[in-house]
C-alpha cells in the first residue's frame, strides 16, 4: 500500500524506521475517501516531530472529518537527504508515500526559529516552489501555525497563509472552505481561495499586506493592500477545553521518540506572568479540563495505546487546581495495570516535591527546579515569584525524601543583569548543597546548574529590550564558570551563537526572508542541532542581504516603535506589556490573575474568553 524507499537506501541510513510509517494508529484513507488532503509537516526529525502534541491533536481532528485525509512528514536526517538527492527521490508522506507537491495543503508548525531552514529544505525536497509568488494552481497551499506565528514575518515570502492561535476549530473551517471551493470547481485559482480564507478569523495572508520602512530601518507602517484583509488578525482560542475533542487513539510509534508516553493535556495557558516567557503571554488565559474528563481520557488513552506512562502536560502542571486528587485517582485506578504518572516540570515548592514523591515512588533520579535567576532582585525583574526560601523548602523536602541529586535551571543575559546577579547563581547552588548537609548530616549532594541565555521574544514585556551581545554572554558564562568550580557542582552551558540567530529571527521582519533563503542555499539546515549550525554562514547570509544582526537582536526599542509583528495579535495589549516592562525596571511583581486580581492584560475582554479554574470556581468535581 505505502510506497517506500528502496531497500538499499533504507539499509544505508541511520534509523530507517523513521521513513517507513506503518505505526499502530496511523490512518490511511483511500483515494475515494480523500477529497481534501493535508500533510502535517514537522520541520525536524521523526523522533522530535512525533512527540509534538499539537500535531497529534490536529491529525485526529482532521481525519475525523469526512473527506479529509491528514498525513505526516518529517525532515529527513542529513544522511537520508543525501540519498534522496543522489537518487532524485522526492519527500513523501508517511501514510501513502505521496509527494508533498501532490497534497492540497502542506501545514508546517513553527516551534522554534532555528527550524525555518528545514521548512525551505522540505519544500524543496517535496518539489514545491519555495516562494509563495512562484506557486501555481498545481501546487499545494503552504500554511503554518504554532507558537512562532506571533511573528511570522521572516517567513512571509514562503508561506501562503498562517493560522494564528489554537487550531482545533479553525482547521475544520479551513477544510470546509476548501471543500466548498472545490465543489464549485476551484473558481479563480489560488488567488480567489486566498480571498476566501482571509475572511476566516485567525487567518493571516502575508501577501495581502505591505510593509513600509523608515530610513533607519524601523517599520514605518504595515498596511493591508487587499480590501478583505483585516487590519489586525487576532488569535483563535478555544473557549472551553472540555468541549473540544482530544485524541485518545494517537499513533504509537515503533521506535523510541523523545516523549515516548501518553501526553494528557490538563490545561492550556499560564498566567503566572513571567516576563521573559513567550508561551505565558501568547497562550492566555488559563483554561483547565475537568478532572472527571481527564480521568476518562486517561482511561481511553491507556486502553488504546498500551503505553505504561502518562505525562500530565501543560505549561506548568503543578498549577492544575485539582492536581493532587487527580494524581491520586489516576494512580489508584492504573496501578494494577503498571501504568505510572509523570510530571514534565515541578514548581519550586514542597507541594511539588510531595507530588514527585507520589508519582515517582521508585525512580529516585534527580529533581529539576527552575528558579531562572540567582538573585531575588533579578527574580523580581522577571516576575518569577519564587524566593530563596521557597527553593530551600523545596530542595529540603527533596533531600528529606531521599533525593540527593538536584538540577537547577537559570537564564543569563536577563534585562538589567549585573555581575552580582550572575554570581548569585553560584551562591544559590552552594546554598542548595549546604541544605543537603543540614538535612542529612552528610556532604555530597550533586547539584547541576544548567544555564541558557535569554532571548527576548515578541509579545513579552521584554520585546523592547536588546539582547546581550555574544561577547557579553561569553564573559558572563566564564564568570559563572569560575564561581562554580566547586566539588559536586556541575555547570552546563553551551556556546550561545545559536541564541543570536534565534534572537534575530524572533524579532525579525520580512526582509530577513532573503537571508533565510541565502543561508539555506549555502547549506543551512537543522540549525537547532549544534553540529549543523554554522554561525559564520548565518552572519554572512545576513550581511550579504544588507541587514545587520545587531539591529534585530541587540537594539533597545523606544516606547513608540512600531514592531513588524503588531498586525498579528495574541490579544495581550501593548499597554499591559509596556507597563510590565516598566514594573520590571522597578523590580515590582505582578500577581497571577488565576488566583489574584485581573492584571489587565486584555486577553479575556479582547477575545471574549475567561479563566477556567475548577477549584477557584468551586466546581463540584474539584471538591472530591
Amino acid at each position, binding site marked *: *500500500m*505505502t510506497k*517506500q524507499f*528502496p*531497500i*538499499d537506501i*533504507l*539499509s*544505508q541510513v541511520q534509523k*530507517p*524506521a523513521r*521513513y*517507513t*510509517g*506503518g*505505526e*499502530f494508529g496511523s490512518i490511511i484513507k483511500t483515494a475515494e475517501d480523500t477529497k481534501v488532503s493535508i500533510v502535517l509537516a514537522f520541520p525536524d526529525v521523526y523522533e522530535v516531530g512525533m512527540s509534538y502534541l499539537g500535531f497529534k491533536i490536529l491529525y485526529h481532528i482532521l481525519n475525523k472529518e469526512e473527506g479529509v485525509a491528514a498525513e505526516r512528514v518529517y525532515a529527513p536526517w542529513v544522511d537520508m537527504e543525501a540519498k534522496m538527492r543522489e537518487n532524485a527521490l522526492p519527500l513523501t508522506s508517511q501514510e501513502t508515500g505521496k509527494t508533498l507537491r501532490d497534497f492540497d495543503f502542506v501545514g508546517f508548525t513553527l516551534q522554534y526559529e532555528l527550524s525555518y531552514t528545514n521548512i525551505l529544505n522540505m519544500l524543496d525536497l517535496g518539489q514545491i516552489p519555495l516562494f509563495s509568488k512562484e506557486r501555481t494552481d498545481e501546487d499545494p497551499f503552504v500554511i503554518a501555525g504554532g507558537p512562532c506565528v506571533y511573528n511570522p514575518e521572516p517567513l512571509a515570502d514562503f508561506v501562503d497563509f498562517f493560522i494564528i492561535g489554537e487550531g482545533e476549530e479553525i482547521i475544520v473551517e479551513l477544510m470546509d472552505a476548501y471543500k466548498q471551493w472545490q465543489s464549485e470547481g476551484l473558481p479563480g485559482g489560488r488567488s480567489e481561495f486566498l480571498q476566501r480564507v482571509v475572511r476566516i478569523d485567525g487567518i493571516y495572508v502575508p501577501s495581502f499586506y505591505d510593509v513600509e520602512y523608515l530610513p533607519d530601518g524601523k517599520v514605518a507602517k504595515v498596511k493591508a493592500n487587499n480590501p478583505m484583509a483585516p487590519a489586525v488578525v487576532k488569535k483563535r482560542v478555544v473557549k472551553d477545553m472540555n468541549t473540544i475533542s482530544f485524541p485518545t487513539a494517537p499513533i*504509537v510509534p*515503533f*521506535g*523510541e521518540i523523545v516523549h515516548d508516553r501518553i501526553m494528557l493535556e490538563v490545561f492550556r495557558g499560564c498566567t503566572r506572568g513571567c516576563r521573559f516567557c513567550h508561551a505565558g503571554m501568547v497562550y492566555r488565559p488559563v483554561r483547565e479540563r475537568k478532572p472527571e474528563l481527564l480521568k476518562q481520557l486517561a482511561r481511553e488513552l491507556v*486502553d*488504546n*495505546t*498500551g*503505553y*505504561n506512562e502518562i505525562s500530565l502536560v501543560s505549561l506548568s502542571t503543578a498549577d492544575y487546581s485539582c492536581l493532587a486528587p487527580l494524581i491520586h485517582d489516576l494512580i489508584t485506578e492504573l496501578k494494577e*495495570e*503498571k501504568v505510572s504518572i509523570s510530571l514534565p516540570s515541578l514548581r519550586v515548592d514542597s507541594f511539588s516535591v510531595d507530588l514527585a514523591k507520589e508519582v515517582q515512588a*521508585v525512580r529516585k533520579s534527580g529533581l529539576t527546579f527552575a528558579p531562572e535567576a540567582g538573585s531575588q532582585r533579578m527574580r523580581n525583574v522577571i516576575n518569577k515569584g519564587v524566593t530563596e526560601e521557597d527553593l530551600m523548602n523545596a530542595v529540603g523536602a527533596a533531600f528529606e525524601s531521599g533525593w540527593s541529586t538536584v538540577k537547577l535551571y537559570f537564564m543569563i543575559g536577563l534585562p538589567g543583569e549585573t555581575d552580582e546577579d550572575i554570581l548569585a547563581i553560584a551562591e544559590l547552588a552552594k546554598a542548595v548543597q549546604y541544605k543537603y548537609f543540614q538535612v542529612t548530616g552528610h556532604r555530597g549532594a550533586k547539584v547541576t546548574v544548567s544555564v541558557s541565555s535569554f532571548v527576548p521574544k515578541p509579545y513579552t514585556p521584554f520585546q523592547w529590550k536588546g539582547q546581550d551581545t555574544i561577547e557579553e554572554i561569553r564573559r558572563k558564562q566564564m564568570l559563572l564558570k569560575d564561581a562554580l568550580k566547586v566539588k559536586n557542582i556541575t555547570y552546563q552551558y553551551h556556546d550561545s551563537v545559536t541564541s543570536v540567530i534565534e534572537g534575530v529571527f524572533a524579532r525579525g521582519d520580512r526582509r530577513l526572508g532573503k537571508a533565510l533563503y541565502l543561508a539555506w542555499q549555502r547549506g543551512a539546515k537543522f540549525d537547532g542541532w549544534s553540529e549543523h549550525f554554522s554561525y559564520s554562514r548565518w552572519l554572512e547570509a545576513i550581511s550579504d542581504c544588507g541587514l545587520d544582526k545587531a539591529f534585530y537582536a541587540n537594539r533597545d526599542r523606544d516606547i513608540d516603535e512600531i514592531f513588524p509583528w503588531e498586525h498579528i495579535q495574541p490579544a495581550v495589549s501593548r499597554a499591559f506589556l509596556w507597563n510590565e516592562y516598566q514594573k520590571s525596571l522597578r523590580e515590582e511583581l505582578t500577581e497571577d490573575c488565576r488566583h489574584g486580581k485581573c492584571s489587565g492584560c486584555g486577553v479575556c475582554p479582547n477575545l471574549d474568553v475567561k479563566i477556567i479554574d475548577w477549584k477557584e470556581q468551586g466546581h463540584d468535581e474539584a471538591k472530591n
Partner: protein
Amino acid sequence: MKLRIKITKDAGIRFISHLEYVRTIERAIRRAKLPVAYSEGFNPHMKFSLASALGVGVTSEAEFVEIELAEEIDLPSTMIKLAVNLPTGIRILAADLADTKADKLMAQAGGADYKVVVPCREDCNWQAAVDRFNEAESVLFQKPIPKGRGMTKEIEVKSFIDHLEAERAGDNLQLTFSCKITPTGSMKAAELLLVLRDSFELPLLVEKADILRTDLYAVDKDGKKMPLLKPEYIA
C-alpha cells in the same frame, strides 16, 4: 500456562529493529489486555520473549512470541483480540498453549529457512559458484563481533549452511537455504551473501537483497525439522 504465537514481520515494517519489534508486541499485548504474568519487584516487566532476533531489513513469516499467562484464556477469541491490536505489518499465523515449564522456544530453535532475492549480473556463471559452495568442505568467514569495534571472529559457514538452492528470476538470483541455530550462535542470511560475493565471485548487489525468513523450527536428533508449535490454532 504459556501462550506461544507465530507471527510475521512484513515488508512494510522490515526496517524496525529487534528492540522496536519487541516493544511493539508488548504494547499490543497490553492493548489487547491479555492476562500476562509480570515479574516481581520495583520495575515489574512483562514475562514474554521472542524465539530469535531478526536482523534489521529482514522480513519473516516465522517469528515466535512466548508469553507467560497469569490466567487461563480462550485461545481463538484471545487471538482475535490481539490481531486487531497489532499494527499492519505483524500478522498472527498460529498459536498454541503450553505448560509454563515447557522449554523456551528460544532454546528449542534449531534452524531457520530463508529465501533471498538479490540482484545479480546477467553475465555471470552463478550456477558454478553455487556448486562450488555446495561442494566445498570448509568455507570460513570473518564474522564481526557485536559491539566489537571492528573485531571479528572466524566461523565455519558450512557448519551453519551446508547447501544452497539457486535459480535465476530475471535480474535477480533467488537463493533458498536452511541455516542452523546452535547454542553458541548462528549466522545471518546477509552474511552468507557477503561470503558468496567475496569468496565465490558472485556479483550480488547485497545492499538490495530482499531477505525473507520462511521458517523457524526445532531439529530432532536425526536432524529432522520439528514444528515449534502444536497445531492448536491456525489463523
